[in-house]
């Protein structure tokens, strides 16, 4: 019945998300036999994201990916909003260049996008097995990982390399002992609502053309809990939600859906969402700890990629995950193929993975921005600067005739004093920001 050779496959990839499918694609392209094990009934059925997929990394999978990718809208407007309970300051960037090939960001539904990407791997010769949970690692006598066990009858899959792309909860990476510390403080919870809205209403409300989209990231949207809000447009729906630090959420005793509701009720957001109906509610964890909280990426016979390796970049200005997962997956697939070719799949033989990641944006960006998560989630960034900035902007544009206009420095000093922000704080955080984003 089974055509499996005793040695099994060259590689088993756990998880048919962006990292797993990209890894399987690279392995299959290198002529290696590879199986993807996916626990959902179809790829993307367990996955949630929060805004924009930056597609340029897909050039390495399909040079004309934008022809076939199941896109909702091409993001041409990117807004960064700073909120207090009744004020907001926005930086709104629009570029029509992003609306045409090779594009910049896009909004998608993960069920469509992940299925499409898995299809690319399958077309290259990878085997996709859905509805199957990888429950553990199989090790040989020397302790090297040589396969995975699954929850199916006779469910052991043996392979020379296992690529764990099993998502944020990565039980495989944890069972391999690759995580030094996986405490709640390194994770955030994303809670999202997809709201039905007529495409014409979306286009007129957000100032968009036919296939153009908008993405708003908001700071100061989650009250006392460190986090942020987001809103982005799909073809005939709008996705809106919040991302909150897990330990902050637990300490606040507030319900996640209440946080979404209060973000939706903000005077700067509510008008965008008028007369929309809830289509789907979802939630997912995000590994936002950044470089310093990543696990070891390589073990004997095993690589970790994507959310399983904590590769979501949450740096305030840039919030990216899917592109990092695809980049890491491609590198993992190539490194595994090279190691199999060389006949050495020990941690040493697979070390090319980390070198590739360091040479590419995946670890380069993470290393450069390793200080960002702590800065972005710090108390002053979350609860003071938004108020100072909003007050400053409000005072700046408040015309208080017949009183003459106060100077900008006076206004800044006044606003800082009102919210208890000292110059030394500003200098310290400014220095920190300069070092973070240098």
């Amino acid at each position, binding site marked *: 019945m*089974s055509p499996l050779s005793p040695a099994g496959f060259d590689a088993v990839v756990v998880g048919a998300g962006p990292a797993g499918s990209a890894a399987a694609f690279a392995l299959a392209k290198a002529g290696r036999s590879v199986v993807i094990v996916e626990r959902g009934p*179809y790829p993307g059925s367990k996955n949630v994201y929060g805004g924009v997929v930056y597609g340029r990394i897909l050039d390495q999978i399909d040079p004309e990916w934008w022809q076939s990718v199941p896109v909702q809208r091409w993001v041409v407007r990117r807004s960064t909003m700073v909120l207090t309970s009744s004020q907001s300051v926005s930086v709104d960037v629009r570029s029509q260049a992003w609306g045409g090939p090779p594009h910049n960001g896009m909004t998608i539904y993960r069920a469509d996008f992940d299925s499409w990407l898995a299809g690319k791997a399958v077309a290259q010769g990878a085997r996709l*097995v859905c509805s199957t949970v990888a429950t553990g690692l199989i090790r040989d006598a020397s302790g090297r990982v040589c396969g995975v066990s699954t929850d199916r*009858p006779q469910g052991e*899959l043996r392979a020379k390399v296992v690529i764990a792309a099993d998502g944020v909860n990565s039980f495989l990476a944890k069972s391999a002992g690759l995580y030094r510390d996986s405490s709640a403080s390194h994770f955030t919870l994303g809670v999202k609502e997809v709201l039905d809205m007529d495409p014409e209403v979306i286009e007129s409300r957000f100032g968009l053309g036919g296939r153009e989209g908008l993405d708003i990231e908001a700071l100061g949207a989650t009250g006392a809990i460190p986090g942020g809000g987001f809103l982005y447009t799909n073809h005939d729906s709008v996705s809106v939600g919040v991302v909150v630090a897990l330990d902050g959420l637990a300490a606040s005793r507030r319900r996640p859906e209440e946080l979404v509701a209060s973000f939706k009720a903000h005077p700067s957001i509510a008008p965008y969402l008028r007369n929309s*109906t809830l289509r789907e509610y979802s939630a997912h964890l995000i590994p936002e700890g950044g470089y310093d909280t990543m696990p070891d990426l390589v073990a004997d016979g095993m690589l970790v990629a994507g959310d399983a390796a904590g590769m979501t970049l949450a740096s305030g200005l840039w919030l990216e995950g899917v592109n990092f997962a695809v980049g890491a997956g491609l590198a993992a697939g190539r490194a595994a193929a090279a190691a199999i070719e060389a006949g050495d799949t020990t941690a040493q033989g697979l070390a090319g993975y980390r070198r590739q990641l360091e040479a590419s944006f995946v670890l380069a960006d993470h290393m450069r921005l390793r200080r960002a998560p702590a800065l972005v989630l710090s108390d002053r960034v979350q609860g003071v600067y938004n108020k100072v900035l909003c007050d400053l902007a409000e005072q700046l544009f408040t015309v208080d005739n017949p009183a003459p206009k106060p100077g900008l420095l006076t206004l800044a000093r006044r606003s800082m004093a009102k919210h208890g922000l000292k110059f030394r704080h500003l200098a310290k955080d400014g220095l920190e920001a300069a070092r973070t984003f240098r």
Partner: protein
Amino acid sequence: MADEPKLFVCVAPDDLRPQVDPLKGSVIVDERRACLSAPDAAAVEHALRMGEAWGLSVVAVTVGPAECDAALAEVSALGVAVRRVDSTRTASPRTLTPTELAGDPRWVAAQLAAQIRSAGPAAMVLCGDRSARHGVGAVPGLLAAELGMPHALGLVEVQVAGELALRVDKRLDGGWRERIAVDCPSVLSVEAAGVRLRRADLGSLVGAPPTVAEVYRAVDVELPGAVEFATPGPYRPRPLRVEPPAGSAHERLVALAGGNVTLSASRVTGPLEAEEAAGELIAFLSAHGYLAGEPGEPGGSRQVRHKD
């Protein structure tokens, strides 16, 4: 091999959670999400058990688009041969046309029967008792008629009772069960009760060929008197005929305003002693006919006190 009797199981993989447009009432299905319904899965499991008991092979027959194949991969990995009659559809997700929505069970039954006849003699034909495709459970009955077999429906338990013989429990109203002995060949419609479809082992799932189904073209079927469906519109109740009222408008106005009725004026009598007051009250009530049966005035009479 063609003469060996086989067990056939008719399945209809479909999007089990179609979306309904709240305004237009149209149904949007996404066949990429197709999977077996619970009754269909139960039918496959029963067929596999019979196949093991009687040493017969199992053939799954379906009518649907290519997207169904993914849902049948697991069935195929369980050692079931899959035959699919292709019904070419447009892109997924898509809005069902009214005719598609209603379907014609006779057409489906004819296609299934043609497949079963061509694939070899049937020892038993199993169906889920109704499909998720707007099904009312008509296909198994029509299939039995097409194949000229007896039909046992509403089965909640199926047990092998010997060589090519079954003992089945049929669901009746009020919580009753009817136990029937069923011989081969018969058509059975089973409910999703008591069994869960076993899971395919990983090796056969991984080793399964990329295309799991043998694909066949639909046979031509004549459907006399097929129901045609118009585009569904919002519900419009029929107008109710109301007769015009009797009398002229002026008379009705006067009647409504109470113009012809003379009214009694109130009368001040007090202050009185208690006995007198009671007498006054009784006199008033009997004068107005509230105290019927008073001596001398059987039934009471109604007097109208005129205003003076």
